């Protein structure tokens, strides 16, 4: 045994080298809390300005001090695919987007009605950083307008709408539809799914989002 270990001595540096390589690689994945932009809601629609086909809108949760309730920030980016949209958004934000806190995805009609839109949704679903349980909703207005509105007492529209959709699912026996449900029932099985509709109601000061009684039938 000792002779065997003696022969292995020249290789003693290998575990240390392996650990060093692991650390170097792991550093690529590490994100400081101060460098994170917390994305809590996403919106996808056809680009109204022309050029790139799709427009991504994100609602960020932002807090400057611990004792403040927080405020939201809304950013948009345009691109032809999910990777391009993320890349363009990275240029707009001054921090790294953190996607796992996102709880709501608001879609425009063209996303659900075209093959390219469905492919875009599939790309989003396959992104490991996106939580497949985020809820879906359809909006007649542009998602950027929806995120600029308010919903109830919540500081963040996405958080408020997510709670509203789940509450509606319990009380009215209307299913809250997630991205995973859409993938499973529509894209995989080629079935149909009733997706809730969000619309804006004009108030005195600003627009107020509301959940419509009807649902959008996606197939």
């Amino acid at each position, binding site marked *: 045994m000792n002779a065997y270990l003696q022969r292995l001595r020249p290789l003693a540096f290998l575990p240390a080298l392996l650990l060093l390589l*692991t*650390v170097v690689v*792991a*550093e690529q*994945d*590490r*994100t*400081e*809390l*101060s460098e*994170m932009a*917390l994305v*809590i809601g996403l919106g996808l629609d056809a680009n109204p300005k022309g050029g790139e086909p799709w427009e991504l809108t994100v609602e960020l*949760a932002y*807090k*400057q*001090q*611990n004792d*403040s309730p*927080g405020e939201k920030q809304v950013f948009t980016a345009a691109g032809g695919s999910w990777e391009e949209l993320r890349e363009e958004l990275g240029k707009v934000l001054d921090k790294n987007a*953190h996607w*796992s*806190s996102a709880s709501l995805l608001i879609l425009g009609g063209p996303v659900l009605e075209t093959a390219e839109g469905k492919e875009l949704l599939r790309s989003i679903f396959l992104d490991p950083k996106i*939580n497949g349980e985020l809820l879906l909703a359809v909006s007649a207005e542009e998602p950027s307008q929806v995120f600029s509105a308010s919903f109830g007492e919540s500081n963040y529209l996405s*958080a408020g709408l997510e709670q509203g959709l789940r509450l509606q699912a319990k009380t009215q026996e209307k299913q809250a539809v997630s991205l995973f449900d859409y993938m499973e029932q529509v894209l995989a099985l080629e079935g149909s799914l009733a997706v809730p509709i969000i619309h804006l109601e004009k108030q005195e000061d600003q627009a107020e989002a509301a959940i419509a009684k009807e649902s959008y039938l996606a197939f």
Partner: protein
Amino acid sequence: MGSRIELKKQISRNLEENIQAIYASTAASMDIVVRRFRLGNGQEAAAFFIDGLVSKDLMGRDFFEPLMHAKKEGIWTAELLAAEVIHSGEVNVETEFSTLFENVLQGLIGLFIDGCSTAITIEIISWPQRSIGEPETDVVIRGPREGFIESVRMNVALLRRKIHHPDFTVETVRLGRYSQTDVCLVYVSSIVNQGVLQKIKQRLEKIDMDGLMDSGIIEQLIQDTPFSLFPTIGVAEKPDIAASRILEGRVVLMLDGSPIALTIPMLFVEGLQNSEDYYTRFYYASWLRLVRFIAFVLNIYLPGFFLAASGFHQQLIPFKLLLSMSAAESVTPFSTGVSMLLIWIVYEILREAGVRLPRPAGQAISIVGAIVMGDAAVNANLISAPVLIVLAVTIVASFVNSAYTDASSILRLCFLLLGWLLGLFGLFLGTAILRLYLCSLESFGTPFFAPFGPMFPRQAGDTMVRMPLWLLRFRPSELSRNHRRMADMAPGKEDKR
């Protein structure tokens, strides 16, 4: 075992020669006293002793007075004086000069008689020692409060009060070329693991150094793995703890001048147990053991887990908490990991300062450091509040298991770095390595991580939880060859007899 003082061999019949030999050997030490006097029959004699180690009152009453009034027709010999005149408890007749001299250096009185080639040593020791009190580091709410002191004789007597059995054995060896320190091995011969006992004796024999001031020196010299992270020799400051371990088959090693007894072998679970566990009800004792285990895990893993979650696995953190943490970190100049390291170093400096300073100042420093500096650092946005809270919880958890303070301090740093650099993967990797390491450790031939690795299912009832006492009928089989320690005393059984 030990080393002998090199002096002239035989005691001379000439009193003057013996006295000159004393002066020559002691290099004119001012605390060596030589007192010439005459016995009751006119025979010349001389006593020599160490000033400060002998009770002067008892010496006058029990030593000089009977000797000076000892009348006899012929001459007195050492043997006759020891048998008929001296009424002190421990009297020995010595033939070798070196043995006599060694015993006098230990606090006995040496007596030379003119015309006699033997001498006497009499024990009337009264060296300064503190009174028996409760140790500061092993405080209990219920249970005995007395603790060991620096006198090994008193410590052995305290143990003797706990175990009144003929098999209770005390072996004494003398170690240290200059200190000549008494080291006692205490065990019960019918219970002890003889293999462990022989190993201890063999390792003690190899000790050859100038002096041993504390049991910690012996611990480092005889332990299995000098570079071990975990201590493989247990410590006991109280007689009830030491006696309990003797009755499990361990050997207790005590050093004169040290209030800390060593218990050999040691198992990992001992560091998570407390003597009070056996004096309270089993469900409360079990709960306390679980709390200590949780504290141990928190102490080691919490900073590393915090850095892993905040750096790699943010999805584990609830959204509102993540938002608060992000807001707190965004105003600090350092990254989370650097903040954690810096504040931890500051804490270690404050803790060390608090221990070394005089007690009132030390407490003030600790309070000032903990509250004022921590609060000021957060208000100045030097570190974030979540980092400070994590460190505070870790520090409090570290005080729960004092046996592993050293090891957990190093492990905490290792897991902090692993979590910071590699995330949860690093923590799992570190845990696997730690587990393997614990399973590889031995304490005098006994697996350190027993009964978890290797598994001893019978001992599981006295590890993380404490089963009712009537179910703990067997001694740990890895410690003792004599397994059964109590009869079947389950409640209700005695009623059926």
